[in-house]
């Protein structure tokens, strides 16, 4: 096809356009990676809960910070919801001391061993009901705090400090924008309320497993799906709409820039297009050549950008203060396809120009 031949003969020109496509694709990929990363940071632990729905106090407005459930209510939610399994979970943000002495905050989640709230341990061991002074720390926490399994972490509790030994590592990600640390529910009560006991709230939320639980409610409680719960994490919806706006602009600008580049090329070739049409080529034939070029060049550009983004992500994960960027095969695939699609849409500018060229310009035309 002459469109492809032209690319071969004008390597420099098309390589420059491919470079622009690469840079734009790289940018859009990184933004998308940031979107995924921020989402993970917001609540990948919530997403990996072994539950179908989450029950809150009906006065909490679906806020895990404000939700407090009594032991009696935890019981009642388990039976009233008709779930097949349920487990109370407590949440509190607390400060801890990093290995270098600086103070940082983490999400401390209190659970009962043996329930569906128990995280999957990937290193070390899980907690038993005797482990009041032990925790399971997420890998992101260990990396960030520069600690390892077996170390002791100092957590600031109200006006005093408390030592916890890290007995196991988990891979649940973060909760509420902070790395997650799991501990016994009684220890959580002590962290949050100063003491454990029946007169203190027993949990922040209840994890529920079973069919058709989302939307259920009862006296003092309401249950929503994990998706709804995630969207109601403070800051998530604003963060998501910001990232989405960036993505939309990225795709639009990508399509526009590629479209304009090829439009300029098409304008420069008006004379040649006139000749092609004069010798009988249809506008469609000429446009097909342009479209093949746009698809070819944008595919090359995207194909270079994907490994670049992947390498950048790997490099960024190694720095001490990791940028919240995460890629999935899905991110790469959909982003790449959308970028190429946008490029094809951008080619429509050229299509209009091709259709407008009057083949009569081939006559009397001096080169």
């Amino acid at each position, binding site marked *: *096809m*002459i469109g492809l*031949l*032209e690319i071969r*003969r*004008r390597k420099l020109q098309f390589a420059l356009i491919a470079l622009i496509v690469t840079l734009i694709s790289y940018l859009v990929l990184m933004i998308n990676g940031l979107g995924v990363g921020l989402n993970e940071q917001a609540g990948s632990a919530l997403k990996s809960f072994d539950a179908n729905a989450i029950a809150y106090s009906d006065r909490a407005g679906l806020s895990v910070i404000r939700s407090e459930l009594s032991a009696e209510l935890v019981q009642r939610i388990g039976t009233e919801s008709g779930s097949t399994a349920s487990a109370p979970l407590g949440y509190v943000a607390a400060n801890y001391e990093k290995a270098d002495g600086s103070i940082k905050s983490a999400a401390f989640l209190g659970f009962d061993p043996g329930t569906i709230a128990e995280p999957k341990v990937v290193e070390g061991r899980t907690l038993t009901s005797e482990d009041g002074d032990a925790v399971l720390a997420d890998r992101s926490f260990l990396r960030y705090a520069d600690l390892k399994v077996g170390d002791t972490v100092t957590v600031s509790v109200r006006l005093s400090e408390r030592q916890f030994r890290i007995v196991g590592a988990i891979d649940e990600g973060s909760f509420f924008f902070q790395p997650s640390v799991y501990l016994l529910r009684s220890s959580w009560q002590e962290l949050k309320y100063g003491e454990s006991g029946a007169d203190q709230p027993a949990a922040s939320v209840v994890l529920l497993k079973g069919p058709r639980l989302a939307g259920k409610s009862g006296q003092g409680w309401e249950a929503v799906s994990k998706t709804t719960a995630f969207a109601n994490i403070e800051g998530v919806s604003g963060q998501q709409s910001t990232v989405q706006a960036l993505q939309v602009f990225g795709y639009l600008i990508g399509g526009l820039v590629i479209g304009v580049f090829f439009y300029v090329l098409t304008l420069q070739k008006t*004379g*040649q297009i006139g*000749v*092609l*049409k*004069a*010798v*009988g*080529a*249809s506008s469609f*034939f000429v446009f097909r050549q342009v479209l093949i070029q746009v698809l070819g060049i944008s595919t090359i550009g995207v194909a270079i950008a994907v490994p670049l983004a992947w390498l950048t992500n790997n490099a960024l994960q190694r720095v001490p203060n990791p940028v919240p960027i995460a890629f999935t095969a899905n991110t790469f695939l959909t982003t790449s396809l959308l970028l190429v699609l946008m490029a094809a849409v951008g080619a429509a500018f050229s299509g209009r120009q091709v259709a407008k060229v009057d*083949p*009569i310009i*081939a*006559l*009397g*035309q*001096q*080169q």
Partner: protein
Amino acid sequence: MTVKLEVRDLSKTYGEGERAVHAVKHVSFKTDPGQFVAVVGPSGSGKTTLLAMIGGLLTPTTGSIVVNGRDIAGLSRGEQAAYRRETIGYVFQANNLLPFLTARENLLVMAQITGANRKAARERAGQLLDELGLQERANAVSTELSGGERQRVAIARALMNDPGLVLVDEPTASLDSARGRQVVESLIREVKTRGKLGLMVTHDMAMAALADRILSMHDGLMTEIAKSETVPA
């Protein structure tokens, strides 16, 4: 394939009212199959407008152009493109080859446009390049070719799809007279040996004299010049 061409009372007017320009006025002529016809005239005489109408690039204001019994004056743009593709071979003033393609590829483009068989197209391109003495230059990019070579490639391109009617627009405009004459001679030879109808627009009487027949345009009107009136070149 040969073509019978009959032009009847053909006119082209640009603009309207007092500003109207009558580029071609009531032109009629008939050709015999296998003829090579030259249309001469100064610039602005309407000869290129006439060529454009016969070649399906311009729609006449009035009159008809009957090609093999079919009036092509009222074709839509899409039909005009198909007509150009199937019936017309064009040689343009400045050859207008695609600059990034080789001589051979410029011919093969024609087969792509019609969707012709690739193998047959390669054979035909090779044969045409041989006939026009371009076998050595077949794989040279067209910007590396000399003006005369380019114009010969343009002739080969015009013949690529085996058109019945070859239309030629000032083929020697960018060539010196010796090369111009060689090009026109090989053009006439190629067109006539294939029994095609050739129509060449030129302002150069010496080139026109090489044709079978000379039509003269002046202010949009056509007259025939008897061959004996021309000075043998």
